[in-house]
């Protein structure tokens, strides 16, 4: 039983990182990325491949995974600066699908069967095959990341981000380099997702493209929307809820996706700010409608 609970907490931790990173893009840049799981996958595969083929120790393969994912985030972020909402969403989606296809088709990534026998990390002589240690590892990562993001959000940069989110044109006029910030956010978010991917790969010890596809991207999105865009705590809660609840209701696995879909729609209609949403993205989401109603 403890094993099971530890497993759930590890998975929740990973999704918390993913949701937080996606929230950076959505809640603080006001853009949707529908290919976020691709960064997750890129991180996982990078970490796994370097560990398997180059015998890279975990301390190196993890950061490498994060950096590689971040580079892809940078690569995706730059050209998409010019695109607006819908189109950006589709491009990120396309990116996700292309990465998925590549992972499926390349020999080195093992195709649809993926990679197996990924070595668990060996740090400080501790045995990370044990769920206890791994959950502590993940918990440490989550805490570090939450701390980092919290500091970021409350810093000068955080204020700049809020300005960009709330009124981009004004921010630009005030001299804030919006392009640089957006790219930085994309890069950071991708890197964090890659980091989560590495943690995942070394935990489960086998990976295949299925876990990193569109479905996962949308799951992460749902977590962010549920928790509330623009709220760090919200993402934590959203990720936790959407990892734990499905486990609790395992019997209803078939109905899960139906519920996700319906939930997304219902949330947007009745509570677009999610559970804990703050800030103008979510306000924009609900205020905008009120405005339209008044004008008739």
């Amino acid at each position, binding site marked *: 039983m403890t094993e099971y609970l530890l497993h759930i907490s590890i998975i929740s931790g990973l999704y918390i990182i993913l949701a937080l990173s996606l929230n950076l893009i959505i809640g603080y840049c006001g853009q949707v990325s529908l290919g976020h799981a691709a960064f997750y996958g890129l991180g996982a595969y990078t970490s796994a491949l370097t560990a398997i083929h180059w015998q890279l120790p975990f301390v190196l393969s993890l950061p490498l995974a994060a950096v590689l994912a971040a580079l892809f985030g940078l690569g995706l972020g730059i050209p998409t600066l010019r695109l607006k909402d819908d189109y950006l969403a589709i491009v990120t989606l396309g990116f996700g699908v292309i990465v998925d296809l590549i992972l499926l088709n390349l020999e080195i990534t093992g195709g649809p069967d993926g990679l197996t026998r990924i070595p668990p990390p060996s740090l400080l002589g501790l045995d990370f095959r044990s769920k206890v240690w791994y959950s502590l590892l993940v918990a440490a990562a989550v805490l570090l990341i939450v701390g980092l993001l919290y500091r970021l959000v409350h810093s000068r940069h955080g204020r700049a981000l809020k300005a960009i989110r709330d009124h981009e044109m004004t921010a630009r006029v005030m001299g804030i380099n919006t392009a640089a910030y957006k790219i930085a956010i994309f890069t950071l978010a991708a890197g964090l997702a890659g980091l989560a991917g590495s943690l995942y790969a070394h935990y489960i010890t086998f990976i295949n493209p299925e876990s990193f596809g569109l479905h996962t991207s949308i799951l992460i999105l749902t977590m962010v929307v549920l928790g509330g865009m623009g709220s760090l705590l919200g993402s934590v809660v959203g990720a936790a809820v959407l990892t734990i609840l499905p486990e609790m209701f395992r019997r209803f696995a078939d109905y899960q996706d139906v519920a996700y879909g319906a939930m997304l729609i219902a949330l947007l209609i009745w509570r677009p700010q999610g559970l804990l949403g703050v800030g103008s993205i979510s306000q924009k989401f609900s205020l905008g409608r009120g405005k339209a109603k008044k*004008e008739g």
Partner: protein
Amino acid sequence: MAKALLTLQSVHSYYGSLHVLKGVSLHVRAGEIVALLGANGAGKTTTLKTISGLLKPRKGRVEFQGENISRLSAEAIVKKGIAHVPEGRRVFSSLTVAANLELGAFARRDYQAIKNDLQEIQERFPILRERARQLAGTLSGGEQQILAIARALMARPKLLLLDEPSMGLAPRLVKQIFAIIRRLQEAGTTILLIEQNARAALKVADRGYVMETGSISLDGSAAELMDHNEVKRAYLGKGYQEVWEE
């Protein structure tokens, strides 16, 4: 006094949280041309939009032919007999001139009469017949204005709302447009007209209202307003004398 065709009673309108119309009251009698004047941002266009239903008043009443139309949708108001030619003409640029005209009659069901009206309008404005198959976006400014007015006429309106029909047009065309407006009145259409070109508007109108920051500041017959110093000054600022006498 004959009961007015259109009456606004203390109308307040908002754009979101912006309070634009602050208690506007006016009336238009059947057969009249009434000019609505005022500087940019005074609320003239908002007034027209409130009448035609694009905006709903938050307080006050809009009455047309004795009926309260404040809560009606724009589509329903068209059916009641009000046609609005919006600011900037707003023809459907990727549709043909003919299609634009046909759309003007969208709310009508009397198909034979619509066909006749189409013929008649094209006779009245031969340029439209000439360009019937052209895309409306390829027409010149003046032609588009004529199209926009003709399109509104296709609805056989009892009241025509015109928003800045002379905007951006050369003086010769402006004269043409105002001649058309006069002819419309002769044919029995009631007109509420917004114009920057106050002088031209007052020359053709029977009465006028001047709006300032969301409410009516002056009203009177066209002749009265033409002479009124306040009008001249509110419009044109200090150097008004030369401009006004043009």
